[in-house]
């Protein structure tokens, strides 16, 4: 799975492209953890190009979320499609993350 990184001021925007499943979630999670540990603790994960997310994908988000909380940073999700939003609801994850509609809103919230 390709991951695109950009910056908006102090906020790092990470955009995974494709599916977050047991094959791709681990490398994605490792990359995000590495980013956070290197000082990027104001993070937006743009899920606009994510077509599917399984239990493994949610685990990687939980790991990133916990690490950012420990560092008192901010993690915001954005661009969640209707189907992916349904999966968040099935897994009871909607209340665990800050979810914004657009990237701009996400960057504002993560600042």
């Amino acid at each position, binding site marked *: 799975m390709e991951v695109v990184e950009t910056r908006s001021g102090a906020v790092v925007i990470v955009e995974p492209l494709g599916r977050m*499943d047991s094959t791709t979630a681990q490398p994605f999670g490792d990359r995000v953890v590495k980013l956070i540990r290197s000082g990027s603790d104001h993070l937006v994960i743009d899920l606009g190009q994510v077509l599917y997310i399984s*239990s493994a994908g949610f685990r990687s988000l939980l*790991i990133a979320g916990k690490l950012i909380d420990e560092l008192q940073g901010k993690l915001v999700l954005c661009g969640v499609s209707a189907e992916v939003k349904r999966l968040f609801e099935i897994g009871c994850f909607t209340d665990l993350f800050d979810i914004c509609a657009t990237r701009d809103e996400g960057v504002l919230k993560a600042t």
Partner: protein
Amino acid sequence: MYPANLLYGVSDRPSAAVCLLNAVQHVMLLAPTLVYPILVMRAAGADESAVVSVVSLSFVALGIGSALQSVKHPQIGSGYLLPVTPTAAYLPASLAAIQLGGLPMLFGMTVLAGIFEIILAQFIRRMRPFFPAEISGVCVFLIGTLLGVLGIRLLLGLDMSGNAQSAATGREVALGIFTIAVMIGLNVWASGRWKMYCAIFGIMGGYLAAAALGALDANALAALKSARIMDLPSVPTRMPSFSFELAIPFMIGALACCLRGMGDITNCQKINDRNWIRPDLTSIRNGIVSDGIGTVAGGMFGTMGSSTYSSSVGMSTAIGVTARVIGFWVGGLLILLSLFPIIAALMVSIPNSVMGAAIIFTGCFVMINGLQIITYRLLDARRTFIVGIALTLSLSRDIFPGFYSGLPEAMQPFVGSSLIIGLLAALVLNAIFRIGVRSRVKLVFAPSFDDHDTVRTFLEQQGAKWGARRDVIERAIFGTVQAIEAIADHARLEGPLEIEASFDEFNLDIRMTYRGDEFLIAERRPTDDEIRDTDDGLRRLAGFMIRRNADRVRSLRRADRSVLEFHFQH
């Protein structure tokens, strides 16, 4: 639950003023369809006063039919606001009846057509496989285009062959454009009462403008001036007659009305229920029975057969008022109007271009509703061809009328209108394409990195063949892929995995069979810490999501295999 755009839903009881004004709007909207009995009566050589008399009698029959449609009874009535009108479906057969045996033949065969439609209604459930949702959608869409084309004909003063029989003048076309501009303008930019009564305002505006410009038809004005203000309509006393030769044309007409009714009632169900999933066949059956009774009433009262009026559904959608109680007001108003011949004469005098504009306006909403019904289900190559060929043939009927009218006499009942030819094509193709569609399919594969694509392709292709709902197939794809992932990671899978999918209109079932540990489905969501820190937490999260995604999940052992079953209500 009503969609957000409805001001008054099907079970609401608006005030008397709202009911009356909406009833008036519906009655004014059906005025253009009076052109059919008028055409038939003029073909029989009737003078203008006889034409006005038949229009008054039509009001009685239409009033009975419209009120019956709103009835919510176990055996009769669709339960929706769905006024009925004289229908073009019976026009070719009615003209043929006039030629063969005059008005008594028309009345007798119309009664028979109504009885046939009532009988046909009893077999709707058994015919269900031959009338899937996309057939209803094609029916609704074709009706919308038929209305649009009729509206253009009236607005431009063209005959059935597209020739200018008495070409509309620039003034008349301008009146039509003015009328539709008023309707669209009020519907798009206005709110409240201005939006709700946009059709009335448009027609009134067009009529007043026509009167001011001296554009009202002279014969119609003369009939208006000579019409009595109040009088009982005279019911014909001649005995009806029958002919076997006309049985097929009238049965085709009845079938077209049955299908049109199915489309219109489906449309009513859809616009009144945000969570609409599939047609309610009981409501449809009862509505078709009412439709048949309305046609029988038409024959007995000496006028044409009737059918549900798609323009009314379109207008209800446009203004957001669908309360069934208004159907009784429409029925009562129509019966009352039959006592005022001057009203019939007034309606007959509304310029064609003004009525054409009104029909175009409502046809737009009917077309879009039809498209939405068609695309609500997955479409594979079979269904694409059914819809595409049916629509193409239907359009060709209007574009090349000369070719179709030149076909042998025996074929004429089957190609008499764009609606008939399109529907027959869709029904025949649907019956043919049912060949080779299996209700149970199997896929065997070894899990790999492209499981998602494999499963998605398999279920999407099969879903399209079945005409399954998109959202249910998406749920099945997620559940299957998540299960494969969890089984491969946690159930010590050995060898390939077998996926079996089966479908009928109400159920989609997925069964996964494999060698490995039974996959236990968690009742309780693991905690966030358990998910993050333990493999067991991750496994239980997968099971929890699988269970919540499907309507029913079962995990069991069969001999030396483990089985995981999902059930989705369709």
